[in-house]
């Protein structure tokens, strides 16, 4: 080395001699050259000398572009991307650079696809080394201490795998090919509303639907897109507006709806305002680590909607989605109602027993026409023959035919969605407009929606600053003129005459009275359902919008700060215009009419308008810091902290305006004046519906989490969050609820190995998490009072509505989750394995739950709710995908399987009587929160066919005791919500054709099937039940039926006991063919055939599809012909819907 230097110096000296004017500044333009040529060129300039050992690779490609630079600057620039360092010194007037090769280097790279779009979901492995990483959202990745000669393997769900040598470069771009018709994906990152969590190191439990899943289902409703498609998503409780819960029930009195997050902030608006086509994914956050980032609002799990936002370096594209759905006309005859002839037969029994004697002349009892005829016949006012003729006419008519004809139709629903997206190096955008038009299955009803969505992101100049602005606007208006039913119970009511003219029915008043009322009342008093339908004018609508801004600034290489804000505003309205010809107005005018025939009425004979308006505004503001210090020896720290402040307010009012559209103008009513009312002779005030609403919810949250990753093998995670709101906790110290979680994961088998034959070995990751999530209620900790009417001395008095509860706290759910992510049979064709998925087992303890409680009577508070109950639960979530064939025909099966069980572990309130349990009002310790209880059934009395139960172990017919006595027999039947549920999706792809079908299953639950309620039948408020025909009629019938006999005297308790007895509890298990999708995808250039075509097609890709939803039940456990999903009184099964559509990308 020394000798060589000396030699160089001599050579250099000689060279100086040769060139009289040696250069001190270098100007050199060599865009593509080798290191060797560079050295050669510089040395020829004189006074500059390179000195290097033999192992320096002189054939590396470099670029150099300098003007009048020093030697040192030039050399450093040239070596920038090479694994070579240089030392400089001056020797005898010459500037000398000594080059030393570095054995390892820190590599920074970026993965782009062949269209220049960044690939954010690629994995980068170092061949033959247990080192791998994944690209970030801009396609960037970073590997430290990479050997000079390393080879990188790039793979991902939607790209063709690629190997590329690092060749000693410190930065470079890898171009990969996109793979179309991609197979079901292995998710690489989840969005939790705060940040993106890499799946490879996630410690929490997530499940996700990507855009392909969302596109597969045609439906406006979010529920259609969630149903059976996410593991851990269970059918929701009645108070759950979403219809789905996550992993069962964690609360008793508070809302059980999972928190909805739209992009970055909690979304309290209607899910209906979210256009599914604007979303790129839906993610369910299920355990303490995943959901816990939302602290006090995460007790029911979290569902995150992620909107599309365009991509950097993406060519602009326009996508048009159009579809039409035809929904079958509902089958009203599904309802197990009594036939007209049975109903008349029942009426005749009642008339024979003089049941209607008190009512037949009562003007306010709506007697049905058959009773009228029967009574007249019995009292000799009608001959038996005449009566029979009239009754026969009635028996042949069924109101369901009229309803089906005049109220229902097949619905043709249309959806159009147009979006454009793209991006340059500095910006990206997404813009869309959607239009939905659904006339619905009910005549005179309509639904219309227009949505606008926008997202624009810019990172001006440097990539240190990123600003994005996004917004959504939804305008919805509906007409709700048709309720789909008429308020008439008797089944032979005829709605239209021969020429279709509306006919009156017996409603509210005795028809005999109504017919003569014309003479003594100002207006006609008949009720004609079809006229009501034609006059109804009920409009609902809303305009909702939000704007969201995000500013992200990279403060340092390892520290970034983000500020986010959202402003939401909305207005919703309801207007119900009661036409003056309609029954509502006529009835009011008549009821309040004063004086003799046709006298004065304080109600003007003109339209009445009911309006309800609500305005709501919400602000959210968040600031967060993200610190990820430089890695050292394969370790990675990630620190994340922030704070958020939320304010949501709603104000509204309801008004009832009399004299609307009147020549005189609106007529104010005296709300205090007591008027005599007719025909019942009572006294009443004129109804004024004026109500006001003013709600404000405020909350503040601070949160932080830390994760530590060790050699891509172990990940440790911990999070802490504090929430406070203006609802819970009066003393400020108790307002803050602390929530926390810890988690860890370990890659047991990472797949890549030094031995290349084992390279495609199984992937196996175990993870565990534990933590505490919270749930809020709308209960307040303040002492709340309500005004009462003045006291006996006519002074103001106010009562205490709810006592102050200084101990009111957050409901808390502790969840332990153990999970396993796996992928087996991996090969180069299926990077993520032929079988892959995840399995989660969890145990949860929901404590501090608000529940009804009985305090000691000396507390002086009769009704009290406190944080006193607890639910324990556990379950399994399995999601498993198997690629069955991968040749020409690709057949993939995906199983989503969940088990969710729970039981009440702490509940202080115990009612004295079993009716509290049967009604579901009270819960029993040790039983599920969804327990179905019934009265023990002792069969029918063989003597008279009355239902019987057990009282203190003895067969009894004492119904009040059977329901409310402390010794009454009570049966626990099981849960009314499925314990096991899930779905199987099979997808077949053959070339450009794809066919898929999903089957849902739900088991381990029960329902109470409706049956005949004799008392309601007699009162004329029930259309009866088909079970009537199976009733006990003679001794011996009890052998084959459990339907009680027709009672001699009406006893509501007898019916109540029977309807809630275990005789009617039925297994609800079912297997349902939910949907089927058939699609044809056309990508020009995808096949050889397209290439032959000379004329280029105007689009990049087109997908045509046919989709059938709600296909039907395959199997059900009950033998009563009841669809368990439509088991309630009056329920109709979801109608089958056929869709046809296209998605074209230009």
């Amino acid at each position, binding site marked *: 080395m020394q000798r060589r230097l000396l030699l160089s110096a001599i050579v250099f000296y000689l060279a100086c001699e040769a060139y009289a004017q040696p250069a001190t500044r270098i100007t050199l333009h060599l865009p593509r050259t080798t290191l060797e040529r560079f050295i050669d060129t510089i040395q020829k300039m004189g006074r500059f000398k390179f000195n290097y050992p033999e192992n320096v690779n002189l054939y590396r490609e470099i670029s150099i572009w300098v003007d009048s630079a020093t030697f040192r600057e030039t050399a450093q620039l040239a070596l920038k991307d090479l694994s070579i360092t240089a030392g400089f010194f001056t020797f005898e007037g010459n500037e000398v650079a000594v080059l030393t090769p570095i054995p390892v280097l820190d590599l920074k790279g970026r993965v782009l696809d062949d269209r220049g779009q960044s690939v954010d979901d690629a994995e980068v492995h170092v061949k033959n080394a247990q080192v791998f990483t994944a690209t970030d959202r801009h396609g960037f990745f970073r590997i430290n201490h990479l050997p000079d000669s390393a080879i990188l393997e790039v793979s991902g769900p939607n790209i063709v795998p690629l190997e590329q040598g690092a060749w000693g470069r410190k930065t470079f771009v890898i171009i990969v090919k996109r793979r179309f018709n991609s197979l079901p994906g292995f998710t690489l990152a989840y969005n939790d509303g705060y940040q993106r969590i890499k799946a490879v190191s996630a410690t929490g439990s997530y499940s996700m639907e990507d855009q392909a899943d969302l596109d597969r289902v045609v439906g406006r409703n979010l529920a259609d897109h969630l149903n059976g498609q996410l593991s851990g998503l269970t059918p929701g409780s009645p108070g759950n507006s979403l219809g789905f819960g996550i992993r069962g029930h964690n609360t008793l009195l508070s809302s059980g709806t999972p928190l909805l997050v739209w992009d970055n902030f909690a979304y309290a608006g209607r899910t209906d305002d979210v256009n599914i086509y604007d979303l790129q994914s839906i993610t369910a956050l299920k355990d303490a680590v995943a959901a816990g980032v939302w602290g006090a609002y995460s007790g029911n799990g979290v569902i995150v909607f992620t909107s599309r936002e365009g991509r950097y370096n993406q060519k602009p594209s326009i996508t048009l989605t159009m579809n039409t759905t035809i929904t079958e006309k509902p089958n009203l005859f599904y309802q197990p109602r009594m036939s007209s002839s049975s109903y008349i037969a029942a009426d005749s029994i009642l008339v024979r027993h003089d049941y209607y004697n008190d009512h037949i002349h009562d003007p306010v009892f709506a007697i049905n026409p058959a009773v009228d005829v029967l009574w007249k016949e019995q009292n000799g006012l009608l001959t038996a023959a005449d009566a029979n003729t009239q009754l026969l006419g009635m028996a042949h008519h069924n109101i369901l035919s009229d309803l089906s004809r005049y109220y229902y139709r097949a619905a043709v629903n249309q959806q159009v969605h147009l979006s454009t997206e793209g991006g340059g190096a500095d910006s990206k955008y997404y813009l869309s407009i959607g239009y939905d038009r659904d006339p619905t299955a009910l005549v005179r009803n309509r639904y219309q929606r227009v949505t606008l969505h926008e997202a624009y992101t810019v990172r001006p100049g440097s990539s240190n600053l990123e600003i994005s602005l996004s917004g959504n606007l939804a305008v919805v208006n509906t007409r709700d003129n048709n309720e789909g039913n008429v308020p008439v119970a008797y089944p032979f009511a005829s709605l239209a005459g021969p020429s279709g003219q509306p006919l009156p029915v017996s409603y509210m008043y005795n028809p005999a009275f109504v017919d003569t009322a014309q003479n003594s009342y100002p207006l006609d008093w008949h009720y004609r359902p079809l006229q009501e339908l034609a006059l109804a004018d009920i409009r609902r609508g809303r305009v909702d919008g939000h704007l969201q801004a995000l500013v992200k*600034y990279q*403060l*340092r290489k390892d*520290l970034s*700060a983000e*500020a986010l804000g959202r402003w939401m505003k909305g207005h919703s309205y309801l207007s119900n215009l009661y036409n003056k010809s309609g029954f509502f107005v006529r009835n009011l005018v008549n009821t309040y009419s004063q004086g003799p025939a046709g006298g004065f009425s304080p109600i003007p004979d003109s339209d009445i308008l009911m309006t309800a308006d609500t305005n709501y505004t919400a602000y959210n503001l968040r*600031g967060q*810091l993200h610190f990820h210090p430089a890695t050292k020896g394969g370790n990675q720290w990630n620190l994340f902290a922030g*704070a958020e*402040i939320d304010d949501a307010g709603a104000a509204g009012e309801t008004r009832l305006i009399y004299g609307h559209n009147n020549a005189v103008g609106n007529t104010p009513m005296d709300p205090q004046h007591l008027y005599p009312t007719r025909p019942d002779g009572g006294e009443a005030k004129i109804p004024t519906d004026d109500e*006001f*609403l*003013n*709600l*404000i*919810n*405020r*909350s*503040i949250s*601070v949160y932080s989490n830390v994760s530590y990753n060790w050699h891509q093998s172990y990940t440790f995670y911990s999070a802490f969050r504090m929430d*406070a*709101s*203006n*609802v819970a906790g009066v003393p*400020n110290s108790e*307002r803050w609820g602390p929530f926390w979680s810890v988690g860890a994961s370990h890659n047991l088998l990472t797949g890549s190995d030094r031995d290349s034959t084992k390279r495609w070995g199984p992937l196996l990751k175990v993870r565990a998490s534990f933590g505490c999530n919270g749930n809020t209620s*709308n209960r*307040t900790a*303040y*002492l*709340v*009072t*309500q*005004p*009462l009417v003045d*006291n*006996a*001395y006519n*002074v*103001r*008095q*106010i*009562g*205490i*509505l709810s*006592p*102050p509860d*200084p*101990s009111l706290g957050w409901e808390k759910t502790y969840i332990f989750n153990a999970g396993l992510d796996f992928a087996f049979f991996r090969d180069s064709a299926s990077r993520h394995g032929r079988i892959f998925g995840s399995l989660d087992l969890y145990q949860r303890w929901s404590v501090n739950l608000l529940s009804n409680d*009985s*305090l*000691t*009577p*000396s*507390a*002086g*508070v*009769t009704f*009290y709710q*406190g944080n006193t109950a607890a639910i324990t639960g556990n379950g399994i979530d399995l999601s498993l995908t198997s690629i069955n064939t991968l040749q020409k025909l690709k057949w993939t099966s995906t199983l989503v399987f969940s088990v969710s069980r729970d039981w009440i572990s702490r509940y202080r309130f115990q009612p004295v009587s079993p009716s509290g349990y049967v009604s579901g009002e009270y819960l029993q310790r040790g039983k599920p929160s969804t327990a179905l209880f019934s009265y023990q059934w002792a069969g029918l009395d063989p003597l008279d066919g009355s239902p019987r139960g057990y009282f203190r172990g003895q067969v009894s017919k004492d119904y009040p005791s059977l329901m409310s006595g402390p010794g009454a027999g009570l049966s626990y039947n099981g849960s009314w919500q499925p314990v096991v549920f899930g779905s199987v999706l099979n997808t077949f792809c053959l070339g450009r054709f794809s066919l898929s079908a999903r089957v849902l299953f739900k088991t381990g639950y029960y329902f109470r099937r409706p049956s005949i309620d004799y008392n309601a039948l007699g009162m004329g408020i029930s259309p009866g039940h088909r079970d009537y025909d199976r009733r006990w009629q003679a001794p011996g019938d009890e052998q084959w039926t459990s339907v009680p006999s027709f009672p001699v005297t009406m006893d509501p308790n007898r019916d109540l006991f029977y309807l809630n007895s275990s005789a009617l509890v039925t297994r609800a298990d079912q297997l349902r063919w939910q949907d089927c999708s058939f699609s044809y995808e056309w990508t020009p250039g995808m096949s050889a055939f397209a290439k032959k075509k000379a004329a280029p097609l105007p689009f990049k890709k087109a997908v045509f599809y046919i989709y059938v939803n709600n296909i039907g039940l395959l199997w059900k456990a009950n033998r009563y012909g009841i669809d368990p999903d439509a088991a309630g009184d009056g329920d109709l099964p979801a109608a089958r819907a056929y869709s046809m559509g296209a998605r074209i990308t230009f």
Partner: protein
Amino acid sequence: MKYITSLVFCCLTVLSLLSCRKYLDKQPDASLQVPGSVADYRAILDQDVNTAQCTPGLGPMGTTDYWVDPSVQSGLSALSLGASTWQPDLYQGNTLSSWSNPYTAIYNCNVVLDGLPQLTGLDNADKTEYNAVYGGALFIRALQLFYLEETFGQPWRPGTAAVDAGIPLRLSADPLKTTPRSSVQAVFGQIAADLSHAAGLLPVAVQVSNRNRPCRSAAYGLLARIWLTQQDYLQAKRYADSSLLLYDSLVDYNTIDSTTAHPFPTAGNAEVLFQCSAFNYPLQYAKTTMVDTTLFNSYAPDDLRKVVFFQRASSGSGMNFKGDYTGLFYLFSGIAVDDIYLIRAECKVRSGDIAGAMSDLDTLLARRWRKGTFRPLTVLDPVEALQLVLTERRKETLFREGRWSDLRRLNQNPATADTLSRVMQGVPYTLKPGDVHYTWLIPMQEITLGGITQNPG
């Protein structure tokens, strides 16, 4: 620049956290009203439930001032039958309004007592009203505690009051605070202290237009009653004096229209210092409930109470009581001047001032007898005088809540003790002096949930 940005960011976070207390104090729902003024607390105290049909009313069921028409005896509810024949096992499982209603009133008072001191920025006018409301809450709480004690707590026995079990003393508005039973002495101590405190705060004048609101003389009157029950006749006389000094109007029954269904007005009875009524068990006002015949016959023909208090039952077999000072068919449990006169008379007899006692009786009875028929009393024998005072006391305060309390006190002394007896459905029942059933059973719910000890029985 970078550091300034992060500094500003951190400062903003800290600032927002500091100001969050105020931010989060906002009411979540405007339709919910949180009391925030003296007037609001006045309205809470003015609730009918604090004074109407709220005192236990169970004691009067145990007196033998009435009998039940045999024809309806078999139809009595378990509670009526059990209470009227001192068989506590017949009602103990029930949620007893006699227990919970007074405690609801006590809870309302506690809300007022806890909430008022937290008000700020009061002016002088507010201060006067503040005192009246605060004193009123103390008074009503004391009244309810007294009747509860006299129903469910052991009777005051001079020797053992410090160890006998009284009732739970609920003195805080926190419904979750479990409260054990205090000793009888502690209960009376609390009541006396509260009333003395209240007397200093309450308005001097009788609240003529609103007798649901107590006045100072009512507080003294109740204090007299408390000390009478504690058999401290000196103290009782002192407070009776104080009360009568402030207000001593008596109604002349000659001015009362005896023919009406309810001869006394609901609001304007000049004798009532504080209006309050007992829980309305149907047995107490049913037309089939008759006044004890001996008691009825003890009224002299010229005694107007014979027609003002009673009317022949529609069934014709006895007399119904109609002389309730509530003006309705509910039993009176407030404070009235006639009672204070009788307390003072008894105290005077017991301290040897027979003449003074007779003078008080004269003052009272002169307004009860037909005009010009009453002759002043001339009894000189102390035993006879005491008997006279007690008889007049029974005749004046029958069918009132306080009667049970008198029985509990008087049966401790053999001279004034009586064995109560009743025949119900052909079965004779008796209640001997000192019987454990002079103290009613506490509802089971309180025993199980509150973990307190039950009374013997």
